[in-house]
């Protein structure tokens, strides 16, 4: 789980072009949306696309998105429990 969290932090910084933030600056339990990261609804949709492309998991409604993208940890947990079996 911890390695997935670290991996996600790096992806979030890269995908959202968070130029002034390093992956290690993001805390696993801090709110992603509406917090210090200044992430908005378009960013969340970009992360939805990343999760689908890189992990094969579709998050296709706003309500579920709000739950999954609450923190990096909730995202990692969702990916961990929903990763399709190969």
């Amino acid at each position, binding site marked *: 789980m911890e390695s997935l969290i670290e991996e996600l932090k790096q992806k979030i910084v890269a995908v959202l072009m968070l130029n002034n933030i390093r992956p290690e600056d993001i805390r696993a339990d801090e709110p992603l949306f509406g917090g210090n990261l200044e992430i908005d609804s*378009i960013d969340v949709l*970009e992360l939805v696309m990343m999760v689908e492309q890189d992990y094969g998991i579709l998050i296709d409604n706003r309500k579920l998105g709000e739950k999954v993208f609450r923190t990096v940890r909730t995202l990692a947990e969702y990916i961990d429990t929903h990763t399709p079996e190969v």
Partner: protein
Amino acid sequence: MSGVRIYVLGMGIVSALGSGVDDHVQALLHEQTAIGPLGLFSGGGKAPLPVGEVTENLPGDKDVPRTHRLAQAAAAQAMADHLSPPEAIVLGVSTGGILQTEENLLAGRSEPEQYAGHAVGSVSEFIARQTGCRGTVLTVATACSSGLTAIWLAAQMLRSGQVQTALAGGADSLCRLTYFGFDALQAVDPAGCRPMDVNRKGMTVAEGAALLLMVADRKKPQGAFAEVRGGGLSCDAYHPAAPHPEGAGAFRAVQSAVKNAGVRTGDIEYVMLHGTGTVDNDQAESRAMKRLFGGDMPAASSIKGSVGHALAAAGAMGSVIAASCLERGYLPASIRCRQPDPELGVTPLQQVENRPVKAILVNSFGFGGNNAALVMSVPDVLETIPQYGPPSGFCVHQSCCVTAAGDTAASLGTVSRGMSCRGIAATDLIFAIDPKRRDRRAGKMTNLAGYLAAKTVPGGKCEQGAIFMGTGWGALTETGRFLDKLFDSGQRFSSPIDFVGSVHNAPAGKAALASACGGPNVTTSGGDISFEQALMAADLAIRGDEGVLVMGADEHHARLTPLFDPAADSDGGGALYVSRGQRSGQPVIQPLFLRYAGNDAGAVAALSNCMGQAVRSFGDIGAVFAGIPKAYRRDGEQQLADMLKRIGYTGAVVDYRKFTGEYASASATATVVALHLLQAGCLPPELTGNARVDLTGRTILMLTCGPAVAATSIFIG
């Protein structure tokens, strides 16, 4: 002030429902929907989403892009009973020939000729050639509100007496950019759009074209269908894609439309809703309607359940259908809205109503918070609208530019030493000035617009302010990134960030957001006269004393620019913060002339005639700044020589593209440089290649030559 009326004399419409007004009226009377699965291109491995796809055979050459041919079909209908070409063409287009560009890129084609129809402005120029129009040609690119904004600007042109006839509307074809882009935003209802329905889940992307032939007259001409009364524009200045939740921007647009149209809200008996079917749009629009009408909400419906959301054509389709309602006495139902959302407080018509109405409000809202509204009526049932006097130009309060040489001071210093600013402007300069204003998601163009706004708008904020921006090619970084990701993933994945950022009006929307400019926000795009179009649009739209930011900017993209604009070797832009009225000692800028010339020598004669008159009114010309795009060098030099001979001018001529370099909006940068030199009172000898020229009390004429010719004067008031 005498009164005038703007009559609709011709109409054309092509959508998924069919071709022609009669087809549409019959389909709407029978409550039909034409929404069905995408067939035009592959849905990228997923089941095709429902779209509003035109299935009619389109006129014209198959090599001509689909948007152009949709517009051609609608233009032919609108002009069918009219022999004389329109004096002006104003079209709203959001993606131009990008469907063809996508196919060319997928096939690896690299000849610039194959991308000749890419530009959004190329659609209007194509329609000018088709209809024989040799007048003013404007292209508006404000995303989904483009078509309605275009119609209102044309109406303002008619109302000010600049032209007697105008063909205006909007066109957009389906393309991968919008199909996959809206899907990535989760803004598409997989079951097909259900505007105003409690279970609505999004829009349906569609295509089509709709145009109105309008004429200004004092009495009703034979065959007039309806009147265009007036309209209004605003900007949410809230979010790049989502509407203001309370509909605050939409409200300002409709409020302004009612005032501009000279009607009372009680006169409006039907509202043609924007009604896309997204949760947010329908909520924001309903709130704006409740605020405008209070408890007396008139009948309302959205036709998007029948035709889908044809983006730049949507508001124009709404206007054509509204004109048919006024003429034939019916009101369409909100097809596919099965259970109206009680929370909205606006219940759309569930069935067609056969009854006459006097006046209709048409709504159209777009990305960047760019809102438009138009009021139409039955001919001659309301008072005439006051005709405008001739525009008086704008007083310039502040100006700045960015070039490869650096900021305004560095650029001026370079030019004054007789050196060139040719080259690619450093992104570091744009990003470094105010890091807080940097949009991390945006590429160079949008950040350039933000920089220009920050440097020109006093205090960085102007709540009532308006923004008019000209760009030849828009945000190429985002367009390139979007298509790269889409194609690299086999059309399975795309970027919502880049989709939102790729629209031509994203830079002006960003500038409005950063500067809190809630007034009209219009992006124009017409190749080398994009900035002149922005200035003209400002001149048409602004009648009050609000602050107005007029900009022109373009970014050079290593891969796309050589395909779209192969002569371009530079980028950058310029901005002016202006307002109406003249103040003693302050510079004034006045657009004089803008015309699509094609190969018509008459345009040069007309421009010379116009300049001759203007010169008599504002006096001595101290210098001519001439912009001749490299691609039209030989013909352009001939045009310039012809113009100068006709007005008998033998003084200093600055061939400004030698110091700005080649790019579509170079004239914006040149205008800023000219303004600063005018204020300094002289042209340095290094710039003229001859003697120093005294500019005290004199005028600088900015001229653009090429397929479109334009003239602007700047002088000290």
